[in-house]
């Protein structure tokens, strides 16, 4: 007789990994009756994979439409075996799916697919992010002017940034439920720099120019102002810092400001 902890490890491995050793331990423990033990286990395995696949499909609907349901189910099955959820809340599940798709050999020719997945993940994050109150520009008066380079901003938790060499926003739009199936998208039409955020209850997608993207993406990653500005100027020499800052405040994107002591010394 297995201790409960051993039983649970064995069942987890038998269901997710079809681990032979675990199956050998478990199968003799199961009452068969009218149905073989492995058939009984299979019901649970189906439940686990079907429910997690469904969760991924809800988070990545455009990816699913782009590759079709059968391929999606196949990819999801591989993904679930390799990266099962580590938290018992499915709104947190799928962050690693875009990275998985980038390395999944059967779809390696679909170079745009991981980017579409990244985009959909950000939409999921934006939809479920907590609310947060924006700060006004005068919240910065408590900092001295010479501290400005070391300012670190916290952006609204719904904000995310993704860029791609492909027009992933159009790919996504063309693969929404009810979209015209005959829409043709020129994959060579050029890349995009996107911001995903939530305004009120609505998830909003905006195209940014190269410099604004570099700036906001850096701030969102917690990089100090001076370095974020440097990245923006590198992307586009005509970047106007004051305009970019006032836009962020006007949109209510900044929810906190603090000083970065360590990297600030190096600025």
């Amino acid at each position, binding site marked *: 007789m*297995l201790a409960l902890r051993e039983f649970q490890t064995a069942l987890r491995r038998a269901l997710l990994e079809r681990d032979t050793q675990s199956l050998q331990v478990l199968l003799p423990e199961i009452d068969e*009756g009218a*149905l073989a*033990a492995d058939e009984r286990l*299979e*019901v649970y395995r189906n439940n*686990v994979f079907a429910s997690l696949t469904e969760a991924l499909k809800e988070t990545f609907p455009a990816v699913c439409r782009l590759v079709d349901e059968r391929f999606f189910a196949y990819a999801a099955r591989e993904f679930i075996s390799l990266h099962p959820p580590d938290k*018992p809340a499915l709104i*947190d599940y799928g962050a690693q799916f875009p990275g998985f798709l980038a390395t999944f050999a059967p779809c390696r020719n679909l170079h745009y697919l991981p980017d579409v997945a990244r985009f959909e993940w950000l939409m999921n994050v934006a939809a479920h992010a907590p609310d947060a109150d924006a700060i006004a520009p005068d919240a910065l008066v408590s900092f001295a002017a010479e501290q400005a380079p070391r300012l670190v901003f916290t952006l609204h938790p719904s904000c995310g940034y993704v860029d791609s060499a492909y027009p992933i926003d159009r790919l996504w739009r063309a693969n929404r439920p009810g979209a015209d199936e005959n829409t043709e998208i020129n994959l060579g039409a050029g890349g995009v720099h996107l911001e995903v955020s939530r305004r009120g209850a609505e998830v909003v997608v905006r195209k940014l120019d190269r410099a604004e993207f570099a700036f906001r993406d850096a701030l969102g990653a917690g990089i100090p102002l001076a370095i974020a500005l440097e990245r923006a100027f590198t992307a586009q020499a005509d970047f106007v810092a004051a305009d970019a800052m006032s836009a962020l405040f006007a949109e209510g994107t900044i929810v906190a400001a603090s000083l970065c002591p360590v990297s600030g010394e190096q600025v």
Partner: protein
Amino acid sequence: MTATERAETFAEIAAAIGVGLRSPHFRDVAACRPTIGWFEVHTENFFGGGPPLAMLESVRQEYPLSLHGVGLSLGTASGLDIAHLRRCKALIDRFQPCLVSEHLSWSVADGIYLNDLLPLPYTEETLAIVSNNISTAQETLGRRVLVENPSRYLNLRHSAIPEPEFLAELARRTGCGILLDVNNIHVTCTNLAVQPDDYFEALAGCAIGEIHLAGHSRVTRGGAELLIDDHASIVSDAVWRLYERAISQFGLVPSLVEWDKDLPDFGTLIGQARKAGRIAEEKFAGHARAA
């Protein structure tokens, strides 16, 4: 029964019947504000913030709410995930639900979440573990938790204690209530060749805090018939009969119709709740007379 008594009984029954609320139906509730006693949602679907929480706030302003957990994993041998429990507690504090429930099952092992209600061997060891976990949950949440009988597809050879007796003992040790899912009784009894009578006998003295009703499907595996608890259809006749019996025995317990997959239009779901109300009315009158 006088007209006034009848009206009071009717109001009591209407207040007792609820439906499971899933996000595609939020809009229907906001638009038509149905006459229904209460709503139940899955706790973990509201662990994020933003619009889902705002929707739930607006529902809560007008209806009692029940929080039904699917991820706490009361059966996990290594103990409860305290971070998860705290997230539950935060929601409970915010929404002040009338009922809080979880399952007699497990879904987490070695830090991995399987998103299914997996079966437990009903042994003395399991009894000690689950009792301990329920007590931790009740202490942290500061309230009584209802524990639901799961639908099962297998039984373990070393599972020595029948499920209903196991549940009754959990209630005795921890003071938890029971969420009696009559669809799960039907599914489990059919799949494992057990008698529903056992549940009604063993749980006779227990605090039944809630009843669940749902649909199941029938499949054939290896020449044998198996019922799958998929919450994807109307409640079957066999399950309605168990519901009649439950109301006759346990009285007017808050009752909920669940539907999770292939969601119907909201009217169909409410129709199932109305049917539960009619049965409750009929059987509860009988129960009241017998009492």
